[in-house]
């Protein structure tokens, strides 16, 4: 019939046209699909990502009216053109370094923490004599102590990292207030060569020589928390020592084990000996030698994995190598947890609360719970994030309970931020005796003879 309509030749032409048309349409469709795949949503242009993007755009629109309502409620009537949400802004865009990079020190000269001071003990003694209202001992049995800790001046990579730094700092503020200790929270990188875990060395030296009235400097990592608010350091025990760390003699001097001691929490006396050991400790720290030094330490020390030189391995190595020079003034404390590895402690908090009481400082009620390896400020730690954060919350609440009980409160449970009353308000507040004697502890009392 068609033949009769169009005629033979024409039919052929039409057929060919149709065939070409089909082909064209097919290719066109395929081209569109391919191009869509490249210019469309997401990396590979899958329909799933398409869907996700559409959903996101839609939900963002839903959030806007709520924000406008909130703004109106808060009384702010300004225009919404400029960014008003703290989630939108990147702090890096705000920083400006006005001055140039400081000149790099001569690479050929060996690294030093500073010009050598050799008469620190005499100078300091003279200064203390000249300044009797800045004594280095608050009471005969209580030295003046400065707790030093710190973190980076930039926000943490982990979004909750700063929150945990804040909690750890509050924890330290509480302990130090109860024990009459001052705090220095460092946020400055004093020496770019000694970045990372080595940053504490230039800081400690600087603090010792700038504050001659300090008798002991207590360095504490930002991931360590006090968990025994009633325990006072036995200062008398360290009368003849200059450097107190948690550790075991046999593990350091016997086994040369890199975790035979811990430099996350230690005491250093303000004296010439300490300046000397800092100078001897520093050489493995500078960035340029760290890799090589790390390899050497991995060879020399037991069980140490190969990575760049860290301050803890370096001090183990130094003490072993120059035992005669230093060991007599180093006290490796293991009678209480000047540093307590969190892994073996955090699950036992409820058991401790049931069986023991604060003031013991040891495995029954640890003085310090140190979250080694958790790295809450960084992106990757050595342990699962959830376990670390949850346990840090528990340790914080365990410690906070000891402070809150002074005022008649405690956390509802170790996993709970909220608090509940344990003691009703009374009209005779001065007759209250808090359980652990923390409200007016003996270690806080001032010398009665002072005016």
């Amino acid at each position, binding site marked *: 019939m068609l033949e009769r309509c169009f005629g033979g030749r024409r039919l052929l032409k039409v057929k060919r046209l149709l065939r070409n048309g089909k082909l064209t349409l097919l290719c066109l469709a395929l081209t569109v699909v*391919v191009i869509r795949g490249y210019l469309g949503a997401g990396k590979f242009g899958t329909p799933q990502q398409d869907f996700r993007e559409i959903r996101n755009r839609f939900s963002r629109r839903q959030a806007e009216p709520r924000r406008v309502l909130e703004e109106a409620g808060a*009384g702010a009537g300004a225009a919404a053109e400029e960014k008003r949400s703290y989630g939108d*802004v990147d702090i890096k865009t*705000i*920083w400006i370094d006005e001055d140039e990079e400081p000149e790099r020190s001569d690479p050929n000269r060996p690294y030093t923490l500073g010009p050598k*001071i050799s008469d620190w003990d005499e100078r300091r003694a003279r200064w203390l004599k000249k300044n009797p209202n*800045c004594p280095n001992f608050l009471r005969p049995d209580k030295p003046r102590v400065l707790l030093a800790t710190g973190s980076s001046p930039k926000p943490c990579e982990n979004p909750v990292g700063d929150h945990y730094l804040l909690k750890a700092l509050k924890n330290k503020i509480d302990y130090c207030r109860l024990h009459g200790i001052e705090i220095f*929270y460092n946020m400055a990188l004093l020496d770019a060569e000694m970045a990372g875990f080595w940053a504490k060395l230039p800081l400690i030296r600087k603090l010792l020589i700038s504050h001659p009235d300090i008798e002991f400097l207590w360095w504490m990592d930002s991931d360590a928390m006090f968990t025994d608010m009633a325990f006072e350091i036995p200062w008398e025990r360290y009368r003849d020592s200059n450097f107190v760390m948690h550790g075991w003699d046999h593990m350091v001097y016997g086994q040369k084990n890199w975790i035979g001691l811990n430099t996350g929490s230690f005491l250093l006396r303000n004296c010439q000996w300490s300046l000397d050991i800092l100078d001897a400790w520093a050489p493995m720290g500078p960035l340029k030698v760290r890799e090589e030094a790390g390899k050497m330490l991995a060879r020399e020390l037991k069980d140490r994995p190969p990575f760049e030189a860290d301050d803890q391995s370096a001090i183990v190595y130094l003490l072993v190598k120059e035992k005669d020079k230093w060991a007599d003034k180093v006290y490796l404390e293991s009678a209480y947890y000047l540093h307590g590895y969190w892994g073996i402690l955090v699950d036992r908090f409820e058991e401790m609360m049931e069986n023991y009481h604060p003031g013991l400082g040891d495995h029954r009620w640890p003085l310090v719970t140190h979250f080694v390896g958790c790295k809450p400020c960084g992106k990757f730690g050595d342990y699962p994030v959830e376990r670390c954060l949850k346990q840090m919350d528990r340790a914080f609440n365990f410690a906070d309970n000891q402070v809150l009980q002074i005022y008649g409160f405690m956390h509802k449970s170790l996993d709970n931020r*909220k608090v509940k009353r344990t003691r009703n308000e009374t009209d005779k507040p001065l007759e209250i005796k808090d359980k652990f004697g923390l409200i007016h502890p003996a270690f806080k009392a001032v010398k009665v003879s002072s005016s």
Partner: protein
Amino acid sequence: MGQDGITPQKRGGGLPTSTTTVNGRAGRGSILPRGRQIHRTFNNIKITILCGFVTILVLRGYIGLNLGSPDADAINQNLIEETNRILAEIRSDHDPDDVTEPYFDGNATFSLGPRISNWDHDRKIWLDLHPQFPSFVRGKPRILLVTGSPPNPCDNPIGDHYLLKAIKNKIDYCRLHGIEIVYNMAHLDKELAGYWAKLPLIRRLMLSHPEVEWIWWMDSDALFTDMVFELPFSKYDDYNLVVHGYPDLLFEQKSWIAVNTGSFLFRNCQWSLDLLDTWAPMGPKGPIRDEAGRILTANLKGRPAFEADDQSALIYLLISQKDLWMNKVFLENSYYLHGYWAGLVDRYEEMIEKYHPGLGDERWPFVTHFVGCKPCGSYGDYPVERCLSSMERAFNFADNQVLKLYGFRHRGLLSPKIKRVRNETVKPLEIVDQFDIRRTEHGSKASLG
């Protein structure tokens, strides 16, 4: 006879293909000239190649080529998802032990605690019995600085970062001036949450620490910017409440910002307990606070409509019960016990050039208070970049005064990095004598004991 065979040859043309047609099968459509066939083959091949190419592209679009390293990407993606999930859990207000309690019953009167009427007397006896906890140390009254923040993480990470910087700033000032700090992260009273939470806290601390002479409340968004300035306590011998404010704004204009409760001092005495008891009733969450908010908006100039806040309530109290309280209230405006940030932060460079720390007033503000910025929340009343850059500047401005002793300062007020401004020396004690803030103020050291 032979002629038939020849004629097709002649007619068929010169191409050899035409000879095959001699056999007799000469259907019209199926016999194509050679050229045509090649042409057709070429066409087919072209189409095949084109379709094959297009297919590969399409497949690549859907399956990908795996040229990069997907592992790092996948790990990163997993980590981000995991962190977000944990974050959401941490940020949530979910309380596993919560028993929902009803709102405070409006008919019963709210109180901070049982009425205490003998506090001055009891406190004096206690102090006499405990000389090892005196209320004056080296001639200066014992002060307790109280501040705090909510127990949950902030809505955004930058909020927590600035809370951390703010508490470091307070630690620095207090270390230099021998002041103790209490950082509160607990809601002591469910009814009095939010800005009202300071009232039960202050009362609790006063009663637990009779050795403390002054309680200094400071908001978490206030920063010390004059590290040398010392509070002039001799001015306040006859007063019990020191708050930054202006008498004309308070009594004549009845403005809701006549005083600022972001930084104020309360003496530890009976009068303060009484004031706290009178102040608290507008606080309880719910219908009481809302109703109180309406009263305050109606009575105070410029106040927007929202629930009752502690500042407006105090202003209303001081105006309406002027005779009861004002003789013991010191409205301080000779220095910035509270300094509204917007008028100060842009002038820091000018201040560094012309003035020096220790003045505490508009030449070198004692406290820079970032009202309205709310970095811990999601939104503030001001553009966030302005708030954040201003807070960073204020923090560094103050930090420079602390770092001076150590020979460093920041590389610009907006830089977290520092640079050395003084070489190391073998005579560090000369530096200490010259630069230590604790030694330069009146020649006496402020310390804990």
